[in-house]
């Protein structure tokens, strides 16, 4: 915890206690906590409804729908990466490589076989999961910067392989054929948006339920200490293997949407900066938080879209955001509201103190002088 936050924390708690005292003995701070939970649920409900209704307003606007689906796709990758980094403590700067595997698998399978979309989707996830498993085999023995270097190597090797293999179409890439269930065309903007939304919801639900399970507790044990976890009976290499496979699986699902959304898959879409983008999305949104990665991905997609006029500007903003998160707001974007609330509470408390000092006579010493002296002697 950074110095300073602790003080603000204590301040807001004492403020809470005072509010409870003023309200009488019946009310407890717990009611305030319950209010917070309601506020949180309400925010989530508003977000979900807004996401569901979004195509009602912007459905005809193809560029906006493309961006929205891109944001959701990248959000799913960020959720998968957050599972690995935030809850598993394993760094990866090569998730662009996993997205490439998922997208290429989708396009290649859909070109050569006439499987129903659900099969193609699952194949994209499973093939990418298998690649994650294979990368997890050596990565299970590595930690911190060694892991970062290895995943960096993976991230730059995949596009190079895609450029040089005939299966992946080389320089020209693979054109994504349309996907259809009944009368629903998944290569049209609105159905694809809903598909991406459903996958994001599935990914989030899977991560939440996974974290509540014993497996999730093992993840966090490994994250918190790779030395102590084995003493608690945790099989660390197995946990890392699971983490890499699962994270790659969900990134592969995102690859399916990516292929449909871009309608062509080529090596140049997956350069190193894409991996850095996912990495930044997780950090800026809020590492190890539920909504953080999605919020980060959406925010960064908007930043990228707004700064296309000046090359390098979006990277500068991304980099500055990561640095700022580390130095100023450790919880990322999702921690901002709480930070603002705390700041407001502090300002309110200070204002009250100043006002009271002006209006009230100085408070009398509650401890009689003799007793105070006696205490100091004894």
């Amino acid at each position: 915890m950074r110095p300073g936050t602790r003080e603000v924390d204590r301040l807001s708690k004492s403020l809470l206690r005072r509010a409870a005292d003023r309200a009488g003995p019946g009310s407890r701070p717990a009611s305030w906590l319950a209010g917070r939970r309601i506020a949180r649920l309400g925010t989530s409900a508003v977000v979900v409804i807004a996401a569901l209704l979004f195509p009602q307003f912007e459905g005809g606007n193809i560029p906006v729908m493309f961006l929205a689906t891109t944001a959701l796709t990248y959000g799913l990758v960020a959720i998968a990466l957050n599972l690995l980094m935030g809850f598993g403590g394993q760094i990866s700067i090569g998730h662009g490589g996993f997205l490439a595997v998922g997208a290429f698998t989708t396009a290649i399978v859909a070109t050569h076989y006439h499987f129903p979309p659900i099969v193609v989707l699952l194949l994209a996830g499973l093939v990418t999961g298998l690649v994650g498993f294979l990368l997890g085999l050596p990565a299970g023995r590595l930690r911190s910067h060694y892991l970062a270097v290895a995943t960096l190597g993976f991230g730059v090797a995949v596009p190079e392989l895609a450029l040089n293999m005939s299966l992946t179409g080389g320089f020209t890439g693979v054109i994504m054929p349309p996907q259809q269930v009944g009368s629903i065309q998944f290569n049209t903007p609105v159905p694809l948006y809903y598909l991406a939304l459903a996958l994001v919801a599935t990914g989030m639900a899977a991560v939440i339920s996974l974290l509540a399970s014993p497996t999730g507790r093992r993840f966090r044990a490994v994250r918190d200490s790779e030395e102590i976890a084995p003493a608690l009976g945790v099989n660390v290499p197995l946990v890392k293997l699971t983490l890499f496979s699962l994270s790659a699986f969900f990134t592969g699902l995102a690859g399916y949407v990516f292929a449909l959304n871009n309608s062509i898959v080529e090596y140049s879409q997956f350069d190193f900066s894409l991996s850095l983008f996912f990495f930044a999305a997780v950090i800026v949104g809020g590492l190890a938080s539920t909504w953080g990665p999605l919020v980060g991905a959406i925010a960064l997609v908007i930043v990228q879209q707004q700064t296309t006029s000046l090359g390098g500007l979006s990277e500068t903003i991304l980099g500055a955001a990561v640095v700022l998160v580390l130095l100023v707001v450790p919880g990322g974007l999702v921690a901002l509201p709480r930070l603002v609330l705390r700041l407001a509470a502090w300002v309110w408390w200070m204002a009250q103190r100043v006002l009271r000092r002006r209006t009230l006579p100085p408070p009398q010493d509650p401890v009689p002088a003799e007793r105070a002296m006696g205490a100091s002697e004894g």
Partner: protein
Amino acid sequence: MTLFLQLVLSGLGWGGIYALAALGLTLIYKTSNVVNFANGALATVVSMLVWTLHTSVGMPIALSWLLAVAAGALLGALTDVMFMRRLRSAAIIVSIVMTLGLLLLFEGLTGVIWGFEPKAVPLVLNGPVITYGSLAISRNNLFIAGLTVVLGLVLYVFYEHTRPGLAVRAVAEDPEVAMLMGISRRRVVTASWAAGVAIAGAAATLAVPASGGLTPTFMESIAVYAFAASVLGGFGSLLGAVVGGFLIGIVTNLVAGYWSNNLQLTLVFALIVAVLYIRPEGLFGRRARVRV
């Protein structure tokens, strides 16, 4: 045989550049325990400064190279003081995240300031190719390889035979005990950052003519080779960085000469994974002790 020797000889140029970049990484890693992912981006800034001094200001190339390398040292020291110093007690992963953030920041800033069109920087040392029998090596490549070896030797003598070098080794060995001995860890780490960025910047500028122009991202792939060289040599070993760099330069050149140069990054990735799997401490590194 002649082809083999010629390929080895021309691999020395790139090998020296990888070795210098790996040396920069090693210097920083040794004292601060941080693998600086932003080193390539910082080195690119140095190369851009060389370009500005040479093209816009009109200084001779060697002078602008030296001045920019000095500015690179300042940049490295400032980076440490402004961004890395306050994370020193945090978990290692936080420092890694920070250097990746700095990579984005500096790469972006370079793009904003200098633009993305490739720029040309002339060879620092120009002249006719030196031949020996049927073998040939360009003066620039010979200069790079010689600079690497000389710099490696200078660093070795500094570390092993001078008092400041002893202080650096003490901080690398055990920062707390070093501080108890009256060594300023702050100064040692900041000086390492200065030296690390300066060396990488010198290497980056020398690499520009061979990599087809100076762009904000031209160091990205060179950085991957430098990481591979550090991993191969064992992170934290000076000798390892130099040997690893030359090995990677020569091997990639041999593969390109005999087979194809299409899959160099994939090859390097496979090499990284193989080294880390078989011998995580690299060729010259020491097996890391884990303290709980």
